[in-house]
């Protein structure tokens, strides 16, 4: 489970002063469900995910991931999560197999257990034919599969996806979404950041629309549609964000 309460993050920029990247975000994501974070670029989605994955420390508020506090129990949180983003590269001079072993080791998995998990992951994701190729030589789709392998190797109960299909072609995007759907059935808690409404409509059980660092709307897709009176999530998003921007 992922739970935040009034979570905020401020940055101090020498030129622009205090920047409120995330402000008072309160939300809950449950096991076996996909929680969508919808927002335009710069809305605060990535900052929120970085706080949840303990890369950034919140300025105020609190957050729990898999029952662990992100500030006080950061190491336990990191042990419980997997993080996938399309923009994250792989180590070009390592092979796919070496990367999987490396990340297994970072999670304290060594020896026979590591071999079992790496072999299983390679087989499950269909990496076998290029498992021993250097990542520099792999196609974008192949790299993304290796990244998925790295994300799930330690079998974390919570998975964060930060625009995982960004820059990928339709076929690879489809595979990524199928993977997200599959892990949902395994009872994992999933937080899925995207600005692509069709993805959110297809995948998300619950959605929070985030804009300017704050949550502007929160509920299931159908609840958001009825709240906004629109027929599609895209129109609902524009209605909610645009409407509130006009109010401001």
């Amino acid at each position, binding site marked *: 489970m992922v739970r935040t309460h009034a979570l905020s993050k401020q940055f101090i920029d020498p030129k622009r002063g205090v920047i409120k990247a995330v402000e008072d975000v309160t939300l809950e994501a449950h096991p076996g469900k996909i929680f969508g974070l919808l927002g335009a670029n710069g809305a605060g989605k990535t900052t929120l995910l*970085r706080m949840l*994955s*303990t*890369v*950034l*420390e919140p300025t105020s508020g609190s957050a729990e991931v898999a029952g662990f506090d992100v500030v006080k129990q950061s*190491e*336990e949180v*990191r*042990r419980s*999560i997997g*993080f996938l*983003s399309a*923009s*994250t*590269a*792989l*180590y070009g*001079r*390592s092979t796919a197999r*070496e990367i999987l072993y*490396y*990340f297994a*080791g*970072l*999670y*304290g998995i*060594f020896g026979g257990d590591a071999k079992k998990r790496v072999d299983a992951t390679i087989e499950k994701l269909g990496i076998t034919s290029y498992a021993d190729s250097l990542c520099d030589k792999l196609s974008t789709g192949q790299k993304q599969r290796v990244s998925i392998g*790295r994300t799930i190797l330690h079998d974390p109960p919570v998975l964060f996806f930060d625009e995982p299909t960004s820059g990928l072609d339709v076929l690879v995007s489809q595979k990524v979404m199928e993977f997200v759907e599959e892990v949902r059935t395994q009872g994992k808690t999933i937080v899925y950041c995207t600005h692509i409404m069709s993805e959110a409509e297809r995948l998300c059980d619950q959605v929070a629309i985030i804009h300017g660092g704050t949550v502007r709307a929160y509920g299931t897709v159908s609840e958001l549609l009825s709240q906004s009176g629109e027929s599609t999530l895209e129109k609902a998003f524009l209605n909610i964000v645009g409407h509130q921007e006009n109010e401001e």
Partner: protein
Amino acid sequence: MHPIIHIYLKELRDMFRDKRVRANALFMPAMIIIMTFTLLGFVIEAVNKPSNQTIHVVNGDSSFAKALEKGDVKIVKVDSVEEGKKLIEAGKATVVLDFPMQPPNRVPQVKIQAYFDPKEEKAKVSLGLLQKLYGEVSKKSLKEMLASKGLPQEASDPIVVVEHEVVVGKKESAGAFLISMLPYLIIIWAFFGGMSIVSDLVAGEKEKLTLETLLISPVKRSQIAIGKFLALSTISMSSCTSAILGVFIMSKLKMGATSKLMEGGLGFGLPELLAVIGTLIPLVCFLAALMIAISAYAKNMREAQSHLGLASFVVMMPMMMTQFIGYSDFAKSMAINAIPILNSASIIRAALQGKTELVPVLISILANGLLAAIMLTLATRMFQREKILVRS
């Protein structure tokens, strides 16, 4: 396996797969030493060889000119001093000698006029050779004259400085030229050995966002920093070792003119080697930690490379000074052992002179080790600061 070792081994494997590392950090140091000294040996030999000197002479038929020819010097006759000067101006002559017409035994002192461009190094080399050559002729004729008058030949040298070598440390010692150059050529690799890869190590990972995947693993940030630091230190130390290996290869190969540079041996034995490596390790650690801190501070690889370029100038200054420390008493003072870079150079100098002593080595290890610890603490603290690590 401890996370630090796990990260260290992965970084090391990736580095060794990088052609830049294999070429610049492992192969080049040894090659540069061998090539530099082989080339210098040839140049020194060529410059000092009389047969490679061409002297232009006026009155080329005089006995002085013949004495030159006997000394293997090439002679080109010119008609007048004016013509010789024109050749110097045109860069076609180095030294023009104007010999007197009188035979040497009729006057008490013979003056040979030498014309040259003082800005030309080659002219000075030629003049030195001429001074030596005519000095010998002059001494020989003086001795003959003294003997003909029944006087002792020793009167030609009324005051003689008799040299008595006092052997300090080992008898074997590298030549003065090697002693001034080698410490510099070994120490520079403590910085430049790792420089080719360090921007990739942290700033590059920031840029490609792979660092973030490390940050969300259960491994502590300090462990990530130390793992990377150890890998970089290993590469830098390998570079220094490659340079030292180059010195040994050069001393064993004794190719042509290089052997002249090593007439007195190398001065290096196992204890000296251990002393040198002992002081180099903490120096390498200090510089590796400095480079990791710079790479962690930079937003991307380009910025890291530009910061490292600036840092290299700061590091280069004391490194360049190492070539000249032997000309001052500072080289013998204990204080030098507390100054990083200079202390390692001083230890390498002493090793090449066969004069390694324990106390300076220990002070150097302590001083470099302390600095390395401080710099590593700073670098690991930078890994704790999200403002630095997550900025892009």
